[in-house]
């Protein structure tokens, strides 16, 4: 068991390191930040001065060495846009993202598991078809379009909820619902398929033959065994939400999280901030993955008994 945990932990560290190197290289390859930061008719002196003050006149490997030496101490330099430590800026935005993703994930799980389970009980039935349509809608409807539509309906037309921004619980509803739909759809499909696999197993037939109630067969026996697949897809979706889906939803609803920060960092060509944000997202996603990996041992005793 310990070996398993250490192995997963080391793997998470390698992923974060690789992400750091990749994001550093990409931000240095795609263009000259100095030209992007200065006005179009900036003088050559201004360009040179800014380039040297940012250390960009040094060879690439010297720049990387300096970056790496500081990065291991958690220092990613100052944000060019906000002129404050980049990691501080990124960390400030993380709680908002966690709040949004947490709420959306909760909605997705609460809807997806019952929907998937219900669909799996009678495959091919009307209920199954309705559930499949709902799940498919969730996967197919673009967040951007759905969000705008919900804003028009619930804010502009009905006046029930605010369009955007952060505040009380009512501000959380629209972005969380928008964000939850896609993971909900995919998770419901996965739950259905995992449950169908389990319900076709011999131990289920045995349980039924022994007279165990159908409710117990489904919820206790089959669902527990389907849990590994469900946890895997849930973890995967949680990672995707943190590292991608939030960008569009936060942008649309002006939710001041890390997804919006990434867009702003790109807009402002703020490469230290972009690096800090991407690395922070990388760390968060790796932690989610680690947690999912560790949770397998809870559902599957064979993993626990490895060593």
């Amino acid at each position, binding site marked *: 068991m310990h070996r398993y945990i250490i192995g997963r932990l080391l793997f998470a560290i390698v992923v974060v390191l690789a992400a750091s190197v990749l994001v550093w290289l990409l931000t240095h390859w795609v*263009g000259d930040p100095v*030209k992007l930061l200065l006005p*179009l008719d900036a003088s050559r002196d201004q360009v040179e001065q800014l380039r040297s003050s940012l250390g960009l006149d040094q060879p690439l490997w010297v720049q990387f060495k300096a970056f790496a030496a500081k990065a291991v101490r958690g220092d990613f330099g100052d944000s060019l846009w*906000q002129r*404050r430590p980049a990691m501080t800026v990124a960390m400030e935005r993380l709680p908002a993202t966690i709040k949004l993703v947490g709420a959306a994930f909760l909605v997705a799980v609460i809807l997806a598991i019952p929907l998937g389970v219900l669909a799996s009980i009678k495959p091919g039935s009307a209920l199954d078809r309705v559930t499949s349509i709902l799940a498919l809608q969730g996967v197919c409807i673009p967040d951007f379009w759905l969000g705008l539509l919900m804003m028009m309906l619930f804010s502009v037309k009905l006046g029930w909820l605010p*369009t955007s*921004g*952060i505040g009380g619980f009512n501000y959380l509803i629209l972005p969380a619902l928008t964000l939850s739909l896609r993971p909900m759809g995919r998770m419901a499909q996965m739950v259905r398929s995992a449950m169908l696999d389990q319900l076709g197993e011999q131990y289920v037939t045995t349980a039924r033959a022994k007279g165990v109630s159908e409710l117990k067969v489904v919820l206790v026996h089959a669902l527990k065994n389907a849990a590994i697949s469900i946890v895997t897809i849930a973890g995967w979706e949680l990672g995707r939400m943190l590292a991608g889906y939030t960008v569009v939803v936060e942008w649309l609803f002006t939710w001041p999280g890390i997804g*919006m920060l990434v867009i702003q960092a790109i807009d402002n060509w703020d490469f230290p901030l972009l690096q800090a944000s991407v690395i922070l997202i990388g760390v968060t996603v790796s932690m989610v993955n680690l947690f999912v990996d560790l949770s397998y041992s809870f559902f599957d005793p064979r993993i626990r008994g490895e060593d």
Partner: protein
Amino acid sequence: MSWKKVLVLLLALVLVGTLAAACKKKEEPKAGPTPGQQEPKKEEPKKEEPKKEEPKVIDKPLVIGMGADPNSLDPHALNDGNERLITANIFEPLVRQLPTSFELKPLLATKWENVNDTTWRFWLRNDVKFHNGEPFNAESVAGTVKRALNPELNSGYLDLWEGISDAKVVEPFVVDIITKDRNPLVPMRMAWFPMMDPKYVQSVGKDVVEKAVGTGPYKLVKWDRGSGIELARNDAYWGPKPAIGKVTFKFQKEDATRLMALRNGEVHIARDMLPEFKDQMPGFKSISGVEFPVFRINAKHPILKDKRIRQALNYAVDKEALKDQLYSGFARVTQCQQGKVEFPGGNPNLKPYPLDVAKAKQLLADAGYKGQKIEMIGERGRWLKDGELIEAVGAMVKDIGVNVDVKILEFSKWLEVYFDLGNPTDLIFVSNSFDLGDQDRPFSGYIASTGRSSTYLDNIPDLDAKILELRSEMDIQKRNAGYAALWERACDDPPWIYLLNLDDIYGVDPNLNFDPRQDQKILVQEITWKK
């Protein structure tokens, strides 16, 4: 099994119904004014009671929706337009531009004059205090100028302050602004120089980016990064007390979100609205801005050096169609100059090149053009409808028979091409903004052979000398006449394909008295509620 079909059908109906309800307009939006014009003031229906006391001041909180976070609240750091919008209410410069012209009025300075070739003297108000209670005086101005010009700060405003080198205290309320050379634009440049309390700036150090203390009518209350900034009226303000006590600037990056928030009454002024939102906004105001999209022509190119070809390119473009179709009328066709005729030194006698395909073809034939390839470089997403504009102009130029190869690049790649003046491209799209309304910038920067972005002819003997002379000409009338004459030359022998001057569009709550300013600042002290 038919009940299942009924169930599925019902579900589909519910879905379609929900979508239709969401898409349906709430109510017919009210029409706004004609683009480019101020909304005419509607007369309020007269009430029966003849006696009316002083108009009641309505103090309701105001919310302004803007597209992005400011980079910092240090008014001298990075020039990103968003910070300026907020800090213009916290900090004040010595002079201020009038709302719709380039004339100046006194603000923290009561008067100013040119003392000698390199000195402008400003007399300051003696009743002004910073928000922290410290008095404003000549020391504050000198300290502010020195701090802002310090190369370590690397200010993004240096181009607006060009030529200013120092400031010296003459008397407690008299200060000299020192320039490197003769600099007729110093008063206008000082309208872009917000004053800070130097001792306070030193004491807060790096925190100056979020602890704004100025002399302005509003004080910073709180800044929720990524979300909004709240300001409150400065009750100790030296000038007239603003009607609105509390104002919040909300950051809403997505244009459609700002529109929805405006329609929902969550924001009362929404900045940077798109022309196509015209019929969806409860009210809007627009003003012709300081943004000028053009194509820079490489006049050193073996084909394009012939002015007939460059004229033909100008005759090829249907500017009216671009204005109406692409910008829904929210633009003006420039009068054959990079700027407005209202700019000091603008030439009102020039007319835009009309669309004349026959003449353009004739000019190409006269110049001996034989279908050689011309490269046209553009980008997408940086300026309003830039990609569409580039594609449309490219198609129009093709129509007169020019073998043009249109390439739309990613912005950072576009920048590399734009700055590569050693190997300039044939035609490149750029949008210039002229905040100072100054004519020196287009000529010194883009036409003089020494210009930072010049790809113009460098064999016109008197041109550089004339540009240099006008740059430091202190006699404003002479200077303006000189520029008007230069524009005549630059129209006949064009360095650009002249296009449009875009409007700034604001979505506005109909209950608000608000008129947009040409300098794009939103000064809350100028805004009041109707009811």
